[in-house]
């Protein structure tokens, strides 16, 4: 636990503090010549950084592209302005403000808090709508709903003139009462909060779940993660940060109008986020710095008067830079400069390496934890598939399938291609609805439950074509599921992440991106990831496909030890009869959607019907 909190809390916090220190020092260096416009540029950049980090919390972790965050910023900005502008000035600007808002007189701090609270409340309803519409990475519905929010806020701001004074003009603080920020302390404090929130959110359970769902929505759900809740939480936190940043922006500009939080700013902030790398906090900050100084540089360039270059050094150059940056990065490096590289990860890595040089790491012997002993106290759970039938259109994929498996045995499921094995697994894990029949685990009826709940009840699967969380590291893949188990399966003793990693031989590769694994290791990671859920049953879909004989045989051991470690039963689809006979206590044979035989592996290999089904002879059972 100690090393965990170091990795997930202490080092990221330390890294965040270093990052903000670097930003502030860099800013001071840049403004050292006393140029007030440089000073203003740095202030604006830091405020933009807060807003971009806010967006990063949602877009980065969930992978859902949102155009609506600046809309939330607009709500926050107006709320802040209406609350914070002195009543005397409001009487000039919006004397007819509804609800007596013209008389409200709050300090900027209070106004900011009101703005954040109100916006988060709005965000709550938006998040309900988003989850109803099935927002997930790449979903068009999320883009539409968030875009709608942006436009609606803009339209309301333009039309509700009693409150907002309408388009083109908006509300403004008096330029004399020192409305602009006194010193930058507030910005520093808020920026530090934003960095910490964004960085630590990535490490929280919610953040991890959201990232898992970002990488593979379906796999996450079958691992017991319900993305809707994580997305909701991410949205609320991110909107809170964006709102605080937007209030600061309004305070710094001393005025607000509908254009301030509309399309241009949305695209600007998104460009900043994308250029640096949307999945990382360091990336987001680097993007803000690149775009800020890039456009400032092009602006200065455009002001230069060089006759031979006047065809390019002219108005519009900054927009060319922004559009070009967007286009160029999308084409050449869509994941951004830094992808999801984090400064503190790198730091931790360095520290580790130093330590290693000083004192060689003691070779830890993995004690194979056996949880089975603890489990035998109660009777092993039984999974019962009872008369399941599935039709796809006119095609009957499963016909009245009955299968029983006990959590202390390993059950094989074999049959030729197209026999319905994977479909059966899909039905058990809730991905496919059965037309009739029931599935019971112990006394629980699982039929009709969503996949995430089935996984939490103790059935976790692997996939024939891997569905790893490909941009997360090997370790993070396991950790995400392990966290789920910690939350929902705490009644069981949970396997240790380190032990799992060592067991499947991935200890060396733990910081590698899952996408970089080779075939065999990817299969083993899938196995370890499923085991991390501490399930009652591991459902394995072709765990040895694509492996050579040696690897397949090693897999027998690995599956056994895994099942042993977490104390679960196994249901396993495979083609490799050596594997199946080597590992299974009981085998069911499926052909054309029905169970044609069951028995011990020895019985099965002797059964002519099985051979017929496999190799397809004239004696095909029909």
């Amino acid at each position, binding site marked *: 636990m100690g090393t965990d909190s170091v990795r997930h809390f202490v080092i990221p916090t330390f890294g965040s503090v270093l990052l903000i220190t670097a930003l502030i020092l860099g800013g001071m260096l840049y403004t050292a010549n006393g140029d007030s416009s440089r000073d203003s540029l740095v202030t604006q950049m830091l405020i933009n950084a807060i807003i971009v980090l806010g967006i990063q919390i949602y877009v980065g972790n969930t992978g859902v592209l949102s155009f609506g965050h600046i809309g939330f910023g607009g709500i926050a900005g107006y709320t802040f302005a209406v609350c914070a502008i002195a009543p005397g000035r409001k009487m000039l600007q919006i004397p007819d403000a509804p609800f007596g808002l013209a008389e409200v007189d709050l300090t900027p701090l209070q106004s900011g808090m009101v703005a954040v609270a109100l916006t988060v409340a709005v965000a709550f309803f938006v998040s309900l709508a988003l989850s109803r519409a099935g927002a997930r990475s790449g979903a068009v519905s999320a883009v539409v709903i968030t875009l709608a929010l942006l436009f*609606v806020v803009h*339209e309301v701001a333009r039309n509700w003139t009693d409150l907002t004074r309408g388009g083109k003009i908006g509300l403004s603080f008096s330029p004399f009462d020192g409305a602009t920020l006194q010193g930058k302390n507030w910005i520093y404090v808020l920026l530090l909060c934003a960095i910490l929130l964004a960085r630590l959110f990535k490490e929280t359970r919610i953040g991890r779940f959201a990232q898992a769902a970002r990488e593979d929505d379906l796999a996450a759900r079958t691992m017991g993660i319900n993305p809707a809740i994580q997305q909701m939480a991410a949205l609320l936190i991110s909107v809170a940060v964006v709102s605080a940043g937007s209030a600061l922006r309004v305070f710094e500009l001393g005025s607000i109008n509908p254009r301030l939080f509309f399309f241009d700013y949305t695209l600007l902030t998104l460009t900043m986020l994308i250029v640096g790398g949307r999945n990382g906090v360091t990336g987001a900050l680097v993007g803000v710095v690149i775009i800020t100084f890039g456009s400032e540089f092009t602006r200065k360039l455009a002001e230069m008067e060089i006759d031979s270059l006047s065809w390019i050094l002219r*108005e519009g150059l900054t927009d060319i830079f922004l559009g070009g940056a967007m286009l160029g990065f999308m*084409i050449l490096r869509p994941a951004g400069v830094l992808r999801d590289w984090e400064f503190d990860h790198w730091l931790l890595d360095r520290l580790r390496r130093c330590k290693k040089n000083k004192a060689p790491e003691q070779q830890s012997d993995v004690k194979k934890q056996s949880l089975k002993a603890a489990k035998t106290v109660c009777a092993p759970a039984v999974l019962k598939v009872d008369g399941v039938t599935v039709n796809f259109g006119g095609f009957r994929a499963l016909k009245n399938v009955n299968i029983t498996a006990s959590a202390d045995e390993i059950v094989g499921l074999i049959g030729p291609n197209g026999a319905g094995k994977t479909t059966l697994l899909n039905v058990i894990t809730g991905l496919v609805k059965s037309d009739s029949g029931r599935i019971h685990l112990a006394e629980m009826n699982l039929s009709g439950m969503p996949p995430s709940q089935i996984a939490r009840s103790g059935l976790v699967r692997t996939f024939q074509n891997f569905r790893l969380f490909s941009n997360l590291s090997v370790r993070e893949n396991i950790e995400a599921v392990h966290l789920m188990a910690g939350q929902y399966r705490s009644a069981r003793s949970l396997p240790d992440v380190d032990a799992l990693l060592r067991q499947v031989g991935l200890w060396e590769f733990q910081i590698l991106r899952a996408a970089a694994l080779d075939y065999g290791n990817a299969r083993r990671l899938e196995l370890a990831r499923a085991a991390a859920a501490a399930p009652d049953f591991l459902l394995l879909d072709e765990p040895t496909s694509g492996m050579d004989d040696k690897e397949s045989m090693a897999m027998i051991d690995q599956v056994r030890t895994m099942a042993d470690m977490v104390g679960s039963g196994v249901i396993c689809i495979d083609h490799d009869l050596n594997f199946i006979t080597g590992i299974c206590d009981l085998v069911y044979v499926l052909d054309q959607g029905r169970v044609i035989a069951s028995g011990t592996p020895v019985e099965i290999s002797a059964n002519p019907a099985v051979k017929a089904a496999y190799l397809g002879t004239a004696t095909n059972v029909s």
Partner: protein
Amino acid sequence: MMELIQQIVDGLGRGSIYALLALGIAVIFGVMHLVNFAHGELITVSAYTSYWLLTSGFDWWLVTLAIILVAALTSVVIEFVAFRWVRGAPDFTMLMTSFGVHFLVQALFVMYVSANFRQFSRPDWIFDTWKIGAISLEIYDLAVIATTLITLLCTYWLLQHTMFGISLRAAAEDFDAARLMGIRSNRVIRGAFFLSGLLAGVAAVFWLMRSGQAGPIAGLNPMLKGVLAALIGGLGSLSGAVLGGFVLGLVEVLLIARLPTEIVGLTDGIVFVLIALLFVFRPQGLITVQHVERV
């Protein structure tokens, strides 16, 4: 009753243009899975083309042809310059690419033409009307509706009965299978952009006849309407896009006519709320396109 009929006619006139724009967006979405937010730039380019031609004394008939051609060519050029490099990339990447194109084209016009609106003259018949009882039919509306119907029929014929159309639809349904049949991906995508540009060109002709002005952001509004209509229709579905266009036109007209004056300004906002609600309860749009995910 008469009022309602009048509004339906007005709505169909509006919706026709939206339908053409939406169809162009849906065609590209079909083959590339790209929501083309740069579709409006075709209108912008058309607008400047008409400005230059009309102020140099060319006739509207000629300008009409030129607009359609220029829009189609621009569409192909944009594909060649930008979208061809992000083919097959995640939706996020393609979406942001289209915004990048939108940004760049706009900036180029600010840089090299002018930030100002440019005006050009409309054709003479544009405001003529026929009266039938209490209903006044604008020739323009009739022309729009008729042209749109003819264009849609031609497009339908093209898609249903020519090898190009069949290839396009095949690519939209299963890109890899289409390639296995010998359909050239370059050619079919370029074709889709060309067709999309033609449709945008026809829409641009009518849009510009009425607006009579060119500016760097002349394409923003038509783009938004087109994207919204395509979204209402369900993006992947071509007939859905056309339907979406007409629905959007009708809803707008009815809202403008029926809302109390104080909140008529919110028409666009209300349309957006309606679309958001549609997506909350029917995320696939009005017409659902099946995409099966294999596990």
